[in-house]
């Protein structure tokens, strides 16, 4: 056995060990107990207590949490309750105390067994590809758009997300948004709406969304609430209102404009002759009466209101909450400088993803075994077939190892790439086997050098043919090119040289 352990074989073994470490982590995560926090709602009780994404919960109220079932059991026992409950949550490094009458606003999952990340098309989630309507964006503009959108989605309460600019082969700039897990219902609205907010008196703009005019937006129970719900002709209507603080400049504008307005006497009281009209994307959201005592005064505190309808009371209430949240988000983040168009929108359910992963593993395994059988039938050599089997397996493990080091999300195209690499990888091993057996005149070293020149040629031809795919189609098919390039590079640098050495000794016997 020892004679097989040449430098190249050792290299393969080391690469394998490193890959396994990067896939399973150190210490291996399948021994770890607890649940992983995947997201925490911003400004919630849980958030305020210090809980954050990626923390691992080990204990709640001194009861050990091993998995998601333990977690839900405890939470369901305690909540909802009529009065505030004390909850002590222990994570790896610290302990957090919460007082609340509803369950903590966090989403948890079992600790993943491996560090391999799967793409949205397998784990579920939402993906949107967005571009500016009738406008070609420069890189600076797309970067601005990305940061505004990121901000907006964060303010809306989404944390487990990725917003990046993407470029395609024709030099177009688009924005890619990926949100893992549960999909917000309003994603389309939230992303594509320009969010141009204007508060006008008559034709004059008093203030707009964004931090230049608005110093802060109230979002806690005291400053933002659903005021009332009423029955209307078709269903229900709920009104919301929240307080905002104007900046000095916009307060001054408000004072200047209202100074010249006259006062009207109405049955409800004395109000100024013109109203404050709130527009979102040029549509009137609400009209507010301005009371007489505000005339010409520098006020920074203003209440913004609006309403939403629904067929049932609950639906109207929920819609009002959603609309309020969206309006708050827009007031904080400001508007986008142009209209956007969603050119691709995927909402993938996580329902069948796990089954798919199992089937893909099965496909990979079955084809390696099948191919090894063919090799055995062709060469009638147990050892050679076995080496081939081991080499192909190591290749897949190393690809997965590299994918988890570079944090690559394995989506279906990436997996197709890995399966395809099994095919080409085996092709090259056959070249090595055959070159080693033929051409009796040459020394073994010569023969294997020749085998390698064939493989190297094929390698470069394949790599260059994959390169355009990195950009074509806004990079949505990039995964295929990435895993294939990793796969064949691993082949040429690590597994193939090791296989060559193994075959060398095999032929000598």
């Amino acid at each position: 056995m020892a004679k097989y352990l040449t430098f190249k074989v050792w290299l393969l073994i080391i690469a394998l060990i490193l890959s396994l470490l990067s896939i399973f982590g150190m210490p291996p995560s399948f021994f770890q107990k607890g649940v992983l926090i995947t997201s925490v709602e911003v400004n919630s009780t849980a958030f305020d207590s210090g809980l954050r994404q990626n923390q691992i919960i080990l204990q709640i109220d001194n009861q050990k949490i091993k998995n998601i079932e333990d977690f839900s059991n405890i939470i369901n026992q305690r909540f909802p309750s009529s009065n505030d409950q004390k909850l002590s949550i222990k994570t790896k490094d610290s302990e957090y105390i919460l007082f609340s009458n509803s369950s903590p606003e966090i989403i948890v999952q079992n600790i993943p067994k491996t560090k391999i990340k799967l793409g949205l098309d397998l784990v579920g989630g939402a993906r949107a590809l967005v571009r500016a309507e009738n406008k070609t964006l420069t890189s600076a503009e797309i970067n601005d758009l990305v940061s505004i959108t990121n901000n907006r989605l964060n303010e809306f309460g989404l944390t487990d997300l990725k917003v990046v600019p993407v470029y395609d082969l024709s030099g177009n700039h688009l924005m890619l948004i990926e949100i893992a897990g549960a999909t917000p219902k309003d994603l389309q609205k939230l992303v594509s709406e320009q969010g141009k907010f204007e508060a006008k008196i008559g034709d004059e703009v008093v203030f707009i969304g964004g931090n230049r005019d608005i110093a802060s937006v109230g979002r806690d129970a005291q400053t933002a609430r659903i005021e009332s719900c009423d029955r209307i002709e078709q269903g229900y209507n709920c009104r919301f209102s929240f307080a905002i603080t104007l900046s000095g400049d916009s307060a001054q504008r408000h004072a200047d404009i209202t100074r010249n307005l006259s006062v009207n006497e109405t049955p409800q009281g004395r109000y100024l002759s013109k109203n404050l009209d709130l527009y979102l994307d040029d549509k009137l959201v609400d009209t507010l009466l301005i009371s007489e005592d505000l005339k010409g005064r520098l006020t920074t505190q203003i209440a913004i209101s609006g309403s939403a309808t629904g067929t049932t009371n609950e639906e109207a209430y929920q819609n009002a909450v959603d609309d309020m949240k969206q309006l708050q988000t827009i007031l904080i983040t400001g508007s986008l400088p142009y209209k956007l168009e969603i050119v691709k929108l995927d909402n993938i359910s996580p329902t069948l993803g796990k089954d798919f992963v199992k089937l893909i593993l099965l496909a990979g395994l079955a084809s390696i075994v099948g191919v090894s059988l063919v090799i055995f039938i062709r060469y009638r050599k147990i050892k050679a077939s076995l080496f081939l089997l081991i080499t192909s397996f190591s290749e897949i493990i190393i690809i997965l190892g590299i994918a988890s080091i570079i944090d690559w999300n394995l989506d279906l195209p990436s997996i197709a790439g890995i399966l395809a690499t099994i095919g080409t990888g085996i092709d090259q091993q056959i070249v090595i086997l055959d070159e080693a057996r033929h051409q009796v005149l040459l020394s073994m070293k010569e023969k294997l050098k020749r085998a390698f020149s064939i493989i190297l040629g094929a390698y470069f031809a394949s790599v260059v043919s994959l390169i355009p795919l990195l950009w074509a189609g806004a990079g949505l098919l990039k995964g295929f090119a990435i895993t294939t390039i990793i796969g064949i590079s691993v082949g040429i640098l690590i597994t193939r040289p090791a296989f060559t050495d193994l075959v060398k000794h095999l032929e000598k016997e």
Partner: protein
Amino acid sequence: MEKLKRFYDKSYKKLLILPAIMILFCFVYLFIFYQTHGDFIKKDISLTGGTTVTLYQPLDVNSLEKNLTDKLTDLHIREVYDLTTKEQKAIIIETTEEGQKTKKILEDYFGYELNDKNSSFEFTGSSLSKTFYRQLLFAILLAFVFMAIVVFLIFKNFIPSIAVIVSAFADILMTLVTFNILGFKMSTAGIVALLMLIGYSVDTDILLTNRLLKSRSTDSLNKKIFEAFKTGMTMTLTAIVSVVISLLIVKSFSVTLTQIFTVILIGLFFDIFNTWLTNASLLKWYIEGKHGKISNL
């Protein structure tokens, strides 16, 4: 085998007529196809734009098709099934209709809300699909040119390089035509698979050319070709075995992967044809023309 060797040695030039006829047929076919369909392929919704909906429940495909055909344009329904029991697990509805509209129509039809627990929606706008299509074609062209450059750099010899490039091209062309004749619709994944064929195809071609041009053995040219043939066939056959096995499994759940492996499978069969008829014969012709016939068998 000996008979075959002798036959090939004698009539390899005549055999070249076969690929020539096939290439010609492909061109004519594609020309007519283009005239009637306005494009070289039938595109599925990943290339025309539209919506794919996956519903995670068993449903009767026939009655769905009957009831939804006039509501959803270009409707196409497939099944996702369990590999062992063949039991239906989900259905996939494809239409060129826009995403929100499709959702509304389906919700009206089923009478309940479609959310991320019971369904998946994938919508691609038609303008985006058009750019995707153009770019993928460009990517194939680019990939082909890159590959050709690498092949020239490896062999530094015009005719053998051209032989490799021609056979890779014939491979893609024949696969495309077969795909059309079988009535399949091409998706983005399918085009990616065509691009991948470039890699699979030059593998065996490079092996062959290397063995024939760079070998110092005293074997006859014909013998060298047949030795290379043995290696190359093992390569392609194992690749076919691995693709067929993968195909049988992925067919049950993934349209994308099924298409990729179908294209590769067709391509691998043509690779056998093009490497060992087109490329080998061209190469033999070139070497014999240059050095005279070295020896008989």
